[in-house]
């Protein structure tokens, strides 16, 4: 078990694409760390560079105090679960789990015992003689996990571990993975493009865009205080309202309405400044009567989210979203008011969060 440290890590592909641009990142021992970002942001390249499957153009990778930048993948003492699980179709479950041990020349009896032990722990004991082709997606995933566990590596790397499962199984697997990681206590880095997955599973996470890390933090930090408008727009199952505004005296003029300066930006704004006002629909209270410090407009769209509705208001030609709890849904065309929570609303200047 070991911490992972990246220093100035850079990867330039032939042709000049900068997949990673001088990244610095420290992942402490035992942490469950998520790399999140849209496709093409470099998150998978980063994971593969840690694994050694890609060679870094510059910078270094340190795993457990050992600089492994120039070390072959097999010598880095990390284990990886691939998106397609990469189980060998011609080997049964036992042989698949024991494969890394076989390469390390562990005696047959010992590696089969280890495979049986790990397999049993993941509930695979009745499947040990099967071939991967005879297993369901969820079972294949557990075999891939078992193979990783059997190696007793310093760190685990998961590349989109849940994306090949169907939606229902994905939720179960999410809980399962998190519990397993906690029990094993092995430093684990996983890549995902699903922000909900990252928020749900990770101890800490990095949000990436175009080869850069845009924010590192706990899921709560990243959700409540996105460091820039990119993260703000990317995180959250309903996107954050990002509204252009201007500072006027002690208030903000947003979409033709006057709003108080959010708590976080108090005293940090100059008069006349152009800003972006950010508030999540979850932090917008909805009122059907005229309200103070609110964005008032006409209800144009209602979206059912299950236990609540997402209301879209047209506020002087700007669309603003708010969440309405069950039983209080307005009708389309009605007047409505979205009241942002002052302690949750945020102000961005030039795309970066304004905060003390």
């Amino acid at each position, binding site marked *: 078990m070991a911490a992972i440290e990246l220093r100035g890590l850079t990867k330039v592909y032939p042709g000049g694409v900068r997949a990673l641009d001088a990244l610095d990142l420290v992942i402490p021992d035992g942490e469950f760390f998520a790399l999140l970002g849209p496709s093409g942001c470099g998150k998978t390249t980063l994971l593969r560079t840690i*694994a*050694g*499957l890609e060679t870094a153009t510059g910078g270094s990778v340190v795993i457990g105090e050992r600089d492994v930048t120039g070390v*072959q*993948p*097999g*010598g*880095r003492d*990390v*284990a*990886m679960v*691939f*998106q*397609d699980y*990469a189980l*060998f*179709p*011609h080997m049964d479950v036992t042989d698949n789990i024991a*494969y*890394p041990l076989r*390469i*390390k020349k562990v005696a047959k009896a010992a590696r089969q015992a280890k495979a049986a032990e790990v397999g049993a722990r993941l509930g695979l004991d009745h499947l040990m003689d099967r071939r991967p082709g005879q297993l369901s997606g969820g079972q294949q995933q557990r075999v891939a996990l078992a193979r990783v566990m059997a*190696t007793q590596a310093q760190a685990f790397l998961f590349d989109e571990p849940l994306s090949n499962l169907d939606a229902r199984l994905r939720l179960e697997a999410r809980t399962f993975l998190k519990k397993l990681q906690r029990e094993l206590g092995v430093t684990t880095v996983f890549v995902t493009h699903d922000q909900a997955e990252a928020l749900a599973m990770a101890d800490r996470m990095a949000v990436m865009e175009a080869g850069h890390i845009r924010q590192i933090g706990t899921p709560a930090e990243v959700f409540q205080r996105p460091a820039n408008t990119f993260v703000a727009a990317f995180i959250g199952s309903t996107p954050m309202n990002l509204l252009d505004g201007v500072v006027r005296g002690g208030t903000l003029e947003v979409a033709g309405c006057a709003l108080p300066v959010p708590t976080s930006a108090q005293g940090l704004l100059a008069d006349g400044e152009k800003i972006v006002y950010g508030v999540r629909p979850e932090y917008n209270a909805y009122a059907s009567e005229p309200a103070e410090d609110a964005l008032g407009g006409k209800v144009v769209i209602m979206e059912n989210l299950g236990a609540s509705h997402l209301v879209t208001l047209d506020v002087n030609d700007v669309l603003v979203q708010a969440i309405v709890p069950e039983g209080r849904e307005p009708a389309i065309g009605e007047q409505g008011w979205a009241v942002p929570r002052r302690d949750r609303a945020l102000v961005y200047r030039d795309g970066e969060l304004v905060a003390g």
Partner: protein
Amino acid sequence: MFLVFPALWVLYLGLTNYRLTGVAAADPQIVGVDNFLTALGNPRFWNSTWLTVEFVAGSAVIGQAVLGFAIAWMLRDRRGPLRRIVEGIVILAWILPSAVVAFLWVALLDPGDGTLNAVLGLTDFAWLLDHPMLSVIVFNIWRGTAFSMMLYAAALGNVPPSHLESARLAGASGWQQLRDVVFPHIRGHVLTNLLLISLWTFNDFSPFMLTAGGPDGKSEVLAVHVYNEAVRNGSLGYGAAISTIILLINLVVAVFYLRLLRSKR
């Protein structure tokens, strides 16, 4: 019609004393299995059979398949000019007409003015006379590797990269990756490739264009043996009998590979 009739005709001829010229050309007699017995008692036939086995094993199975795979494996991640040049050269050897290629090789190996001797600084080293089988085998490797290379290149494209990477992360060496990931994935391709090139090489007549089977039968593979017996000696009946035997051997080889191909490990 065009396939079956000549085949059946060969079966029939093999049972006669049909000749190219003379009385037996006008009025062939059925002689039963005499031709087959003659063949099986003829040391020249056994010599040819053994040479053919050498030819198939050396030039097809070991030469073309191994070399073709090696080139495909080395080029698998390469892009750009190196790959195109190697592929171009290899494929060029394949698309040239046999007669042209044979002429090129005769010129290359000529004892007096041959390119190879000039390059090696040898004088009057008669490759085709002193090492006829070696010459013919190397010639056929050069000639046929392109097919195997292209087939294996396509097959390697089907090996999932994540499987190779998974093996690399476990610390598998190049050889272990081949054994545990690549070969299990391309087993079907390997067997199909071996089946095809074995049969093609078995029936290949182009050695004739280099050595005509000589000197003294030292490179007379079965296909050349048939030609020498049937056309040059005029014993069409006897030649047809040997052809039938070749057909049977081919059948056995084909069945052997197809069996392997069907058996799932």
